[in-house]
């Protein structure tokens, strides 16, 4: 078990004009579960693979524990990796798959046997130990891949989208299994996913990457409630946060012809991007005029897609709420996020208050 320190790490693939990962700084505490999340191609895998030693580090340093590992062989980094497509050795049985890494490290046979037995028990792989991977289901294969990591008792687990090949139901249960296992073993983990639900539920701390840079680091709920930019706001949370062009004049927010009083004089003036989560909008008798386009029924809630002042907006309602062609909406107190229109960065937030709005004549 160890901490991982990533300082000023960059990666430019040979022949590429721009870096795929640039200037990443991240300190992972011993035993922490860090999830790297971001859209496809943002450099998550690249960063993870640099920690694993599968890609050369172009610039910066990676420390595992207090050891600089930039030039250390992957086999000597004391990490174990779980791959998206399991990467099991097809010619070895489940038992041999798990024992392979230990055997090559000259672990005594009795020790290997007991570790494999322990991992098999933890992951409920006992009945399959003598099968080849081809005779296992996807979920079982992924458990073997986890077992292969667990028996090594490494300083850190590295996961690269381990659940992406599984169906939705299995993904949820495996997610729980991974979390349970990691809590129990207390092994530092770095986990890559582009599924924001997976990211939210697994992480101690979430790292949101965008185009090779860190956009925000923080506890999942922190990020959910205080997204540092429009990028994070639109990426974390489902449905995505509504982002609306607006303008601040004095102490109120103007969305088209609608004025939303903010209660006090605002530091930022002029055009802003207003962020409002679908569940933070309430139906009221007056306020933002909302025209319904279509409705998505999700069972537990109902997503109403429509327009406010010509800009798209999504609203989450309870399934028993009455549906009309048009609503008036107000924003829940304290739930308005303001972002700089040009940079997308978060602006000082308005004091909480009830933002009842009023239509200007």
């Amino acid at each position, binding site marked *: 078990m160890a901490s991982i320190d990533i300082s000023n790490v960059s990666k430019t693939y040979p022949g590429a004009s721009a870096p795929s990962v640039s200037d990443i700084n991240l300190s992972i505490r011993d035993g922490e579960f860090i999830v790297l999340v971001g859209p496809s191609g943002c450099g998550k895998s690249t960063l993870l693979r640099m920690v694993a030693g599968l890609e050369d580090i172009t610039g910066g340093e990676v420390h595992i524990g207090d050891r600089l590992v930039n030039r250390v062989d992957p086999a000597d980094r004391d990490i*174990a990796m779980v791959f998206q*497509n399991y*990467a*099991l050795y097809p010619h070895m049985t489940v038992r041999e798959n798990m024992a*392979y*890494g230990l055997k*090559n490290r000259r672990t005594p046979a009795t020790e290997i046997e007991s570790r494999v037995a322990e991992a098999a028990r933890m992951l409920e792989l006992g009945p399959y130990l003598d099968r080849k991977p081809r005779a296992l289901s996807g979920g079982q294969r992924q458990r073997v891949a986890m077992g292969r990591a667990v028996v090594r008792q490494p300083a850190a687990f590295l996961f690269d989208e381990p659940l992406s090949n599984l169906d939705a139901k299995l993904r949820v249960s495996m997610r729980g299994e991974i979390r349970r296992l990691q809590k129990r073993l207390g092994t530092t983990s770095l986990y890559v996913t582009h599924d924001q639900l997976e990211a939210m539920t697994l992480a101690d701390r979430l790292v949101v990457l965008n185009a090779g840079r860190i956009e925000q680091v923080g506890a999942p709920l922190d990020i959910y409630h205080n997204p540092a930019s429009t990028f994070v706001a639109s990426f974390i949370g489902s449905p995505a946060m509504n982002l609306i062009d607006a303008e601040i004049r004095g102490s109120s927010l103007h969305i088209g012809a609608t004025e939303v009083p903010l209660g006090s004089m605002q530091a930022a003036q002029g055009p802003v991007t207003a962020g409002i989560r679908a569940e933070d909008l309430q139906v009221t008798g007056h306020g933002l005029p909302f025209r319904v386009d279509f409705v998505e029924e999700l069972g537990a809630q109902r997503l109403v897609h429509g327009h406010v002042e010509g800009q798209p907006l999504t609203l989450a309602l309870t399934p028993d709420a009455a549906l009309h062609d048009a609503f008036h909406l107000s924003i829940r107190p304290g739930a308005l996020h303001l972002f700089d229109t040009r940079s997308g960065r978060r602006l000082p937030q308005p004091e909480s208050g009830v933002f009842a709005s009023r239509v200007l004549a």
Partner: protein
Amino acid sequence: MTDVTQPPGAAATLRRWWQRTSRPAEAAKRVQFDRPLLPWLFLMPQLAVIFVFFYWPSVQAITSSFYLEDPFGFGASFVGLDNYRDALGSAEYRRIAGFTALFTALVTALSLGLGLLFAVKADKVIRGRSTYRTALISVYAVAPPVAGLMGMMLFDQHIGPFVTLAAKFGWTMQVGINYWDTAFAMILVSVWKQVPYNFIFFLSGLQGIPASVREAAVIDCKNGFTRFRTAILPLLAPTAFFLLIINITYALFDTFAVIDVMVKDKPANNPITLVYKVYNDGFRGNDIGGSAAQSVILMVVVLVLTLVQFRWLERRVHYG
């Protein structure tokens, strides 16, 4: 009366073996046709080709092998197993069979070994990859007689660069005159001709191994050679098994042109393989019956080799 489902002796063993190996494939893909004749209709063209070019000549060869043909084509007389007895009884035949075994073993082992080596190296090359690959593969486009001729030139007594090179090490090479020098050249040219074929298959085999499996192995095993032996090579086994059969067949039969170019119109004490002897006896010596018997023997040998390989090796190398 014997039970039809359990015929006695060798036939029963063969049939049981056949059932065992063919059953899973049968169950996996079975297409239902309404009319029983339709599938046969689809098979007709293929069957016709196989019949004309394989079964018919085979039957001809087997028939001829029991007859002594008049060299001038005036009829033939039935001699039973005499042709076989003559062939197997002759010291010359056994000597050539011995050389054929050695030749086949060496050509197969060296072609496979070198093909694998080049493939592993090519697989590691990232820059200039396609150039390297094309250079290796292009040899395969050379037709066997041309390859034999090129070999002859390389080993030519007067202008052959290989002979010059050997002379530098004090080896006076006399291809076409000295038995083992000829054998050496023959093996070298045959191997050279076959390496690209093996290279292509091994390379595509290597590239069929998922990158993540290799990476998992890199993390699990530090030593590159051990890693190759324990995690990569076993995954190439199906390819290697297929190539083994192909290479043995190649060494036994397809090296004919290379051998022909090397020993034709040369003194008699040159090494030849059984196939070449079949040709020599049949078309040069006009001993059709003896030649036919020899080719039947060769056919049986290949059949047995292939069956043995399928029986013993195939089940160990497929992982699916």
